[in-house]
């Protein structure tokens, strides 16, 4: 079949081909086009490493926020031990690498046409798409919080930024002798040790500023999900008498007016409520058709991070259906992204895949302003099991909270921010 230019343009328009502009701007020399949705630890790292390892691939990063605010270390902001500014970064470093950073919201994915539609009206064509949307909150499971006004009053502070500062203000406004109630969702959720670190940080603040105040932790889980022994030792040590930890306390509802968390059996009233809702992969994952499991998470091939549901789309970070013993953490998202970046480059260039990619995880938790505990693990892709497996004998916990790891935790933070975002 031969087409005149006029016929081709008509055919292209009829077929809904939206890649003409992309081809024109891509120009010669581009090995392929990758679009990354989400500029967090996963998406930022994926965009960066594709450009670092293969500068001839065009990379576009779509991010709805103007800057990056780190969830890791954001609990320290609640205690006044650091500031939002200290844990914020911009996207200038990624732009300087030649990554096209687009501030917009991705609203739809057409996997057949290989294009992403943005809220601003633009359409981006891709050869491979990387979806790293983080989590959305399932407020529909908590009727009393299923509206904007309620959510503005009973905060999650589980995405760092305005919510973090608003919760800090609520804590500061609370009278001495007040009760802070934290609700923890059933695992899996973003950052397994995060709620328990938050308990420590609020306790640290209360100890200094409001020593008569108390913390009630309503945990949906049967026990502390991460670093249980270490956290409990701190609660029974430095913070003895301040923390009332209640396992198996799954939330049924919240009454915002009376500041009451309703459990299956009994109500718990507080002066400041902090409800971390159950979570699922961010909405764009649903739009892209890559949510596979319990209407919440995205199953991927861990050799490539490619979706098991939709070819050509890769998923990273918290949105994935985690492999065994794999936490939803910043370190993990950053490490997923490097496995994904290498695979995307290999797939675009027709090169062989890494047969045995590895992941290393490090999660630091501050128990006060300076002392830290960690949990670590190492994972390798097993072709036999077709998944990532945690390597037996590797990884582990801190012996006890210590200030040296406090320094390393800040070093980790500065390096992972730079590794993911510059």
């Amino acid at each position, binding site marked *: 079949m031969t087409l005149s230019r006029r016929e081709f343009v008509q055919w292209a328009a009829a077929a809904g081909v939206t890649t003409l502009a992309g081809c024109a701007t891509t120009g010669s020399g581009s090995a392929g086009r990758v679009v990354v949705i989400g500029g967090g630890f996963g998406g930022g790292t994926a965009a*960066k*490493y594709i450009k*670092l*390892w293969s500068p001839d691939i065009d990379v576009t990063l779509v991010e709805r926020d103007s800057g990056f605010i780190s969830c890791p270390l954001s609990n320290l902001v609640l205690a006044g031990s650091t500031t939002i500014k200290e844990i914020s970064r911009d996207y200038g470093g990624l732009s300087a690498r030649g990554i096209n950073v687009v501030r917009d919201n991705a609203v739809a994915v057409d996997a057949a046409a290989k294009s992403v539609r943005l809220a601003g009206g633009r359409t981006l064509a891709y050869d491979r798409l990387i979806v790293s949307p983080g989590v959305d909150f399932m407020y529909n499971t908590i009727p009393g919080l299923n509206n904007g006004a309620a959510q503005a009053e009973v905060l999650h502070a589980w995405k760092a930024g305005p919510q973090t500062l608003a919760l800090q203000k609520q804590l500061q406004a609370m009278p001495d002798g007040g009760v802070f109630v934290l609700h923890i969702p059933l695992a899996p959720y973003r950052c397994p040790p995060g709620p328990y670190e938050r308990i420590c940080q609020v306790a640290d603040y209360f100890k200094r500023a409001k020593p008569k105040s108390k913390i009630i932790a309503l945990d949906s889980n049967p026990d502390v999900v991460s670093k249980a022994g270490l956290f409990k030792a701190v609660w029974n040590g430095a913070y003895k008498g301040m923390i009332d930890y209640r396992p198996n306390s799954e939330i049924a509802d919240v009454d915002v007016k009376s500041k009451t968390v309703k459990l299956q059996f009994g109500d718990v009233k507080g002066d400041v409520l902090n409800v971390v809702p159950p979570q699922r992969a961010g909405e764009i994952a649903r739009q892209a058709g890559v949510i596979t499991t319990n209407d919440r998470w995205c199953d991927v091939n861990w050799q490539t991070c490619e979706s098991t549901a939709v070819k050509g789309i890769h998923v990273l970070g918290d949105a994935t259906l985690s492999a065994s013993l794999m936490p939803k953490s910043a*370190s993990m998202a*950053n*490490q997923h992204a*490097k*496995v994904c970046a*290498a695979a995307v480059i290999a797939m675009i260039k027709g090169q*062989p895949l*890494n*047969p*045995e*990619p*590895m*992941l*290393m995880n*490090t999660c630091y938790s501050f128990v006060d302003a300076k002392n830290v505990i*960690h949990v*670590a*693990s*190492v*994972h*390798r892709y097993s*072709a036999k099991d077709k998944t990532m497996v945690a*390597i037996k*004998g*590797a*990884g*582990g916990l*801190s012996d006890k909270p*210590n200030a*040296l*790891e406090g*320094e*390393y935790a*800040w*070093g*980790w933070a*500065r*390096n*992972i*921010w*730079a*590794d993911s975002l*510059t």
Partner: protein
Amino acid sequence: MRTWLHGLPLAGVALITLATGLSAHAQDPNAGRALAATCATCHGTDGRSAGGVPPSLAGQNRQILLQAMRDFRDGKRAATIMHQHAKGYTDQQFELMADYFSKLKP
């Protein structure tokens, strides 16, 4: 001659390692890069640490890097976390990582 004799057993060991230690990793030209990238989360991109803590790995002596990883793994060197991470890697992976970092500019 003396130097040559000295070098012979070492070269022999290296050859045996190459012949018998070929795992999936050795066949991937980017194996060292991929393994080193797992270190970068804490030690900085390509082992260049933003604030120097944890230490930079780029441009370090290959033998020193290799010995450090082995000592961490074997519990011969005190650590907060490296003794736990190092147990997740094989000797051959240590070599690939040491090769990669030692060839980079500091």
